[in-house]
């Protein structure tokens, strides 16, 4: 009796394993070809130097990293870029997400105009990025100064110009267009909360903000956590739309790491000369972001998840 049960379980285990292998085989093959094989040279570049005229890569394990160390200690560009990346992250991933949760709650509660609001919150995700940038840029730089000048007879500088307003306007833009997917998913998660729990809270006389922070938010926390984890992982790849707005013309003090990496590789005058350095910088960023991601995951999801 016991033996057959065990046998059956073993058969099932083998079945599971076969099924598992079938499930992951194709996606893994895709990753082996289009991630590992294709990017092999890119990974290697971090430990190489490039001869621009000969067009050849030479192994030099430490060259890019020692240069990185120099940049970090002797220039301000990397330091500023790291700080800006963190700053963008705090504003979009923390503040922007908080807003998204609040807005989702509003929609979830079906308060007045909630359908109307939902439509508009998602709209920026539907429209082409180019359109959003063109329209926003025109408003920030021409329309707002124009209306103020014509109506109030006052002259102001365009918002995307000058150290006082430029970056705050960019942060605003990044949050402004970021709600779409989040609202969709958070309201979806909130709709799943059992009405009994909400009712029970009402009977106990909880106030709206208590319901939000002590019932709803904890219930959707796992959903939020997933997005938080992803956002930490992508901390250093975010360009914050800087290229879309300014092309190559961003002041050093406004660089993010994502933009810096993009510039190193894509700026025409650089040729391929910065590929190796950029690759090394990418690896260093990953070495910071990855443990940070695990840490955030542990904090958000608890120990047992690990």
């Amino acid at each position, binding site marked *: 009796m016991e033996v057959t049960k065990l046998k059956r379980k073993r058969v*099932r285990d083998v079945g599971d394993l076969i*099924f598992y292998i079938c499930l992951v085989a194709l*996606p893994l093959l895709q990753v082996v070809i289009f991630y590992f094989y294709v990017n092999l040279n890119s990974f290697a570049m971090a430990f190489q130097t490039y001869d621009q005229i000969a067009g050849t890569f030479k192994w030099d394990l430490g060259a890019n990293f020692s240069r990185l160390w120099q940049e970090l200690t002797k220039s301000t560009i990397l330091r500023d870029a790291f700080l800006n990346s963190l700053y963008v992250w705090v504003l979009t991933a923390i503040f922007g997400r908080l807003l998204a949760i609040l*807005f989702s709650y509003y929609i979830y509660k079906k308060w007045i105009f909630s359908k109307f609001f939902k439509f508009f919150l998602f709209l920026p995700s539907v429209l082409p990025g180019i359109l959003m940038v063109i329209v926003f840029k025109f408003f920030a730089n021409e329309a707002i100064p124009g209306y103020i000048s014509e109506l109030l007879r006052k002259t102001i500088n365009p918002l995307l110009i000058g150290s006082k307003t430029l970056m705050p306007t960019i942060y605003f833009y990044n949050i402004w267009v970021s709600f779409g997917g989040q609202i969709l998913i958070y309201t*979806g998660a909130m709709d799943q909360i059992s009405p009994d729990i909400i009712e029970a809270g009402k009977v106990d006389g909880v106030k709206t903000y208590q319901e939000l922070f002590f019932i709803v938010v904890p219930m959707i*926390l796992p959903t939020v956590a997933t997005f938080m984890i992803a956002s930490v992982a992508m901390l250093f790849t975010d360009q914050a739309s800087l290229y879309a707005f300014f092309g190559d013309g961003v002041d050093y003090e406004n660089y993010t790491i994502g933009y810096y*990496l993009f510039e190193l590789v894509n700026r025409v005058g650089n040729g391929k000369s910065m590929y190796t350095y950029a690759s090394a910088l990418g690896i260093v960023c*990953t070495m910071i972001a990855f443990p940070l991601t695990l840490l955030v995951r542990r904090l958000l999801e608890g120990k047992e998840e690990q």
Partner: protein
Amino acid sequence: MRKTNKKVSALAIVLGVVLGLYVISLILPLLWMLLTTLKSVSEYEFMEMPNSDRLGNMLWWPRGITFNNYATAYKYFYIDIDVIHNGQLATARFNIFQQFINSILYSLGCAAAVTVTSLMMGYAAARFKYKFSKFIYAFVLVALSLPIVGSMPSEIATAQKLGIFDTFGGIWIMRASFLNTYFLIFYAQFKMIPMDYTEAAKIDGANPLTIMLKIIVPLAAGTTSTIFVLNFIALWNDFQIPMVYLPSHPVAAYGMYRFQNTAIVEIAHTPTRLAGICLMALPIVVFYGIFNKKLNVNLSVGGIKG
């Protein structure tokens, strides 16, 4: 009459006001854009405005309404491609509708590929407690945080070697990667569904495939369709990848990008250029309008409704 105890919460008022401001901040620029497309080039560029020292009615309500910009935009929204026709080099012209067909093929196919791959891997990693599952999850986090530098040449070369460059099937395969946030969402969702479901089905003799497709995945149908739609919309607006990887199959987003950058005299004016973007965005906005309600999904990674 019993006085309702449903007092309007202060939170609702504050959030309502903020949302209202948000919607205004969104509507004003979009309205400006729509109105601009209805202005003649001469009005937009040359009309004398009483309070402005710049020529052109750029900021205010149109004095005359015209649909010429749309007609012009439609006329010039084409892309010519070299093709071999009857053994000879010929020129094929893709008008906007033919570009839409390519857009549909690109965005639907790639969205399906990404969604299915991420679902499969998310399922495998979350529902099977092999060590490899943990590795997959960690690997995705690393891949998310690692910026890849200069991999385009080898990616194209690999696609050419495999004979899939410049084909839709090829781009679907190249996009069928699980190294993305969607994997994390699927993972989190599948993780939250109690293992009892699987165990119970197993005892009933269900095989792993049946368990996955008939029991667990349906619980994530909402997530799946949301992720699919989010991908579809993003891909619809993507011009960079198709521009490089599908040179003979121009998509409408690339058509729009080209339209923004062309030097053709007839379209090199803001009203006409914006009309071009509107034409390209129209189908996706209509799609969104229709599926807006359907997007209200039962997504939850936090648990299952009782």
